[in-house]
């Protein structure tokens, strides 16, 4: 009964999963922004660091993870699951996988929210989560992939709308990025060491970091923009051709721009310049997208005037335009020299996040939820309020941060006529910024309030309406029409399709193959120290380093002295790549809220560090650094020390068997030495406290090359 198969097929769209992700988006969004406001406050009011679990270093990654993976992530899934079904005229592939995807993703978020404050982190930005969670992420992502491609396969619409291309690119690239940047060697369930070391780790990290921004915060949103904006304005996208064109251009160029995060680092010059060139080239496709979006609204500005949802979209697109113009500018070496490590970068990121991601998410939610719940928005007025409060919030956030970033960047480089640093004391620059940081916190708060209003408004809307869990529709089957044609007409066209699938499959195979094959080889090679005097960390220093990682010191202190007079003057000898060969992971950092620590070793006596960690303001009055009393109470856990050392050996760090065997012994000896030194300075502390390890590490930092002279 073939004839039957050609009848219109009745099927339905799964709105429930969309609803779930939407709700998750709202909740996590508010949470993430709240944490944001808290850490913003901590940056001018150290007292806001409550207990070790609420200290800046630990909850800053919580903020980034919450907004990127919880808020934006859930928003993406909501948007994709809604538009994908409709664009392909097919119900989502597997209801089970959808559920698994949803609950899996929420579990990941909850785990992140637990582990990060506990200080369980890899310290790699946007990839802080430890290896068990990484595995879970991989699993959930695969489920998402199967669901997406499954739906594509059983679609009833032949043409893949441009949005879907963006989704596909997102899936594939993020998968690869996540895999490559998660090569960790577990020591325990909660601790692992990065396989890559130093410069190499840095390169991988920023190849990842950059492309995460590209393919998690940009491409999926462009995809959603191309679906939802036309729907909202009820007019086709300005130029579909352009959309296709700039899609291909964007994904081909984006991948190469990563190195611009490491300008003036010890990365080879040509690699840096490469990053710069491609970053500049990125302007074209990025603006292609923005212009296409804005021009879609041409002749509809009257609509924009009364339709707040469109207003959100306009701000989102404008933000995208600004950010994608600023990005390449920031990658110009001379601008980067000033902006890098300052609040400028923070401002840049937040223009993108608050306007582009945030506002588009809001617009989509406002559009989506009333539709799925067969009702109209609970309060049009509150939407308007949200828009204005949010916009003002963005302004209050961005402007002060730009000023702050520029000011600090300039102050660092300021020399007196006599040729000494004008602001030799780093703290001078920090104090300058306090008012700006206060304003920033205010901006953030406004934005948060907006989000809360939205939450109230949308939940009210959900309660007043009722969700059509399965939206019944009908469409002609594509498959058997096509198939029967294809079979009969151009029998060769199956040839056309097979190679494609084969190619992709083989590519993925090659990809994995090359990884498996290459990693060991280069690991061995790359760890031949290039500077003879650079030695592995002692067990105590290594433990200290792990505490440094746990407390997230890296989020305020860089360990990379760039080759500028202003920096060598301030910190000392500029960094060499050979110094990092034993750093699993690298700790260069990306922001200097406090001074660089690359040459910290030996600068101050042990006692200074002791007091400073106990109460920073005692050593440097007005410092915004929180105090770390718990380091003085908690005993250093040496149960894993031996494993750590041997793990490092596996990664190619030259420890010998003896060192491994006597790791703990060695540790205690060094601890006692430090205790003794402190005692000389009238400070009593038992040698098994964590602070000892921290001091050991800090005093070691960047000292090796001095031994040469």
């Amino acid at each position: 009964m073939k004839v039957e198969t050609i009848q219109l097929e009745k099927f339905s769209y799964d709105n429930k999963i969309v609803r779930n992700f939407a709700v998750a988006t709202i909740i996590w969004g508010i949470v993430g922004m709240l944490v944001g406001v808290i850490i913003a406050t901590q940056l001018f009011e150290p007292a806001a660091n409550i207990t070790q679990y609420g200290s800046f270093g630990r909850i800053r990654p919580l903020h980034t993870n919450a907004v990127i993976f919880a808020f934006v992530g859930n928003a993406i899934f909501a948007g994709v699951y809604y538009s994908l079904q409709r664009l392909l005229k097919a119900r989502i592939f597997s209801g089970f996988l959808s559920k698994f995807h949803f609950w899996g993703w929420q579990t990941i978020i909850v785990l992140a929210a637990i582990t990060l404050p506990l200080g369980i982190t890899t310290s790699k930005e946007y990839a802080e989560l430890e290896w068990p969670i990484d595995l879970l992420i991989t699993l959930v992502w695969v489920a998402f992939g199967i669901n997406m491609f499954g739906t594509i396969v059983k679609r009833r619409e032949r043409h893949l709308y441009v949005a879907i291309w963006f989704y596909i690119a997102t899936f594939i690239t993020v998968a690869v990025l996540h895999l490559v940047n998660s090569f960790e060697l577990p020591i325990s369930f909660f601790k692992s060491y990065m396989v890559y070391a130093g410069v190499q780790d840095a390169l991988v990290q920023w190849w990842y970091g950059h492309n995460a921004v590209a393919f998690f915060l940009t491409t999926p949103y462009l995809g959603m923009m191309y679906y939802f904006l036309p729907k909202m304005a009820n007019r086709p996208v300005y130029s579909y051709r352009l959309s296709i064109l700039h899609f291909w251009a964007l994904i081909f160029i984006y991948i190469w721009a990563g190195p611009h995060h490491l300008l003036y680092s010890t990365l080879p010059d040509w690699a840096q310049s490469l990053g710069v060139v491609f970053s500049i080239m990125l302007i074209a496709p990025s603006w292609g997208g923005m212009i296409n979006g804005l021009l879609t609204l041409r002749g509809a500005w009257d609509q924009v005037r009364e339709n707040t949802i469109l207003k959100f979209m306009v701000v989102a697109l404008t933000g995208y335009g600004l950010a994608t113009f600023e990005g390449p500018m920031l990658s110009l070496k001379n601008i980067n020299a000033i902006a890098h490590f300052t609040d400028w970068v923070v401002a840049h990121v937040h223009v993108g996040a608050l306007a582009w991601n945030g506002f588009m998410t809001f617009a989509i939610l406002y559009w989506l939820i009333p539709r799925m719940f067969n009702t109209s928005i609970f309060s049009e007025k509150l939407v308007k309020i949200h828009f204005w409060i949010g916009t003002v919030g963005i302004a209050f956030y961005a402007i002060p941060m730009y000023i702050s970033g520029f000011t600090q960047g300039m102050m660092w480089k300021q020399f007196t006529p006599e040729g000494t640093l004008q602001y030799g004391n780093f703290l001078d620059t920090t104090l300058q910024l306090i008012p700006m940081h206060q304003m920033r916190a205010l901006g953030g708060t406004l934005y948060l309030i907006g989000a809360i209003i939205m939450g109230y408004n949308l939940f009210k809307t959900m309660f007043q309406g009722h969700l059509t869990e399965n939206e019944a529709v009908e469409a002609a089957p594509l498959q058997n029409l096509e198939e029967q044609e294809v079979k009969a007409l151009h029998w060769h066209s199956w040839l056309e399709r097979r190679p494609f699938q084969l190619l992709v499959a083989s590519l993925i195979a090659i990809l994995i193959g090359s990884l498996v094959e290459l990693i060991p080889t280069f690991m061995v090679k790359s760890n031949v120290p290039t500077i003879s005097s650079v030695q592995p960390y002692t067990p105590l220093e290594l433990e200290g380093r792990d505490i440094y990682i746990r407390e997230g010191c890296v989020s305020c202190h860089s360990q990379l002295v760039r080759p500028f007079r202003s920096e060598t003057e301030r910190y000392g000898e500029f960094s060499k790549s050979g110094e990092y060969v034993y750093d699993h992971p690298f700790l260069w950092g990306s922001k200097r809220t406090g001074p660089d620590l690359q040459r910290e070793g030996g600068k101050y006596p042990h006692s200074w560090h002791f007091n400073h960690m106990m109460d920073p303001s005692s050593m440097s009055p007005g410092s915004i650094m929180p105090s770390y009393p718990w380091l003085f109470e908690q005993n250093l856990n040496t149960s894993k020390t031996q494993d750590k050392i041997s793990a490092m050996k596996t990664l190619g760090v030259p420890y010998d068997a003896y060192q491994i065997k006597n790791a703990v012994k060695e540790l205690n000896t060094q601890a006692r030495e430090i205790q003794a030194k402190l005692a000389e300075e009238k400070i009593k502390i038992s040698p098994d406290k964590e602070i000892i390890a921290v001091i050991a590490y800090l005093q070691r930092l960047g000292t090796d090359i001095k031994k040469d002279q």
Partner: protein
Amino acid sequence: MEIIYILISISFLLALSFLAAFIWSVKSGQQNDLVTPAMRILMEDSKPISEKINFKYESRNDTIRKV
């Protein structure tokens, strides 16, 4: 900097797979019509109707009557 080998090969392979996707999209006629799809997405999905009236066009007299 052996890591660069890996990163570049991975990125290059990624790019290649995207190229493959592009070639497929052209060959399989994805790019044939770059006007209509933009408009098509604006059409609301057709909800199934319980009783369908079937029209047949009677030639030679310009009425369209139900059958």
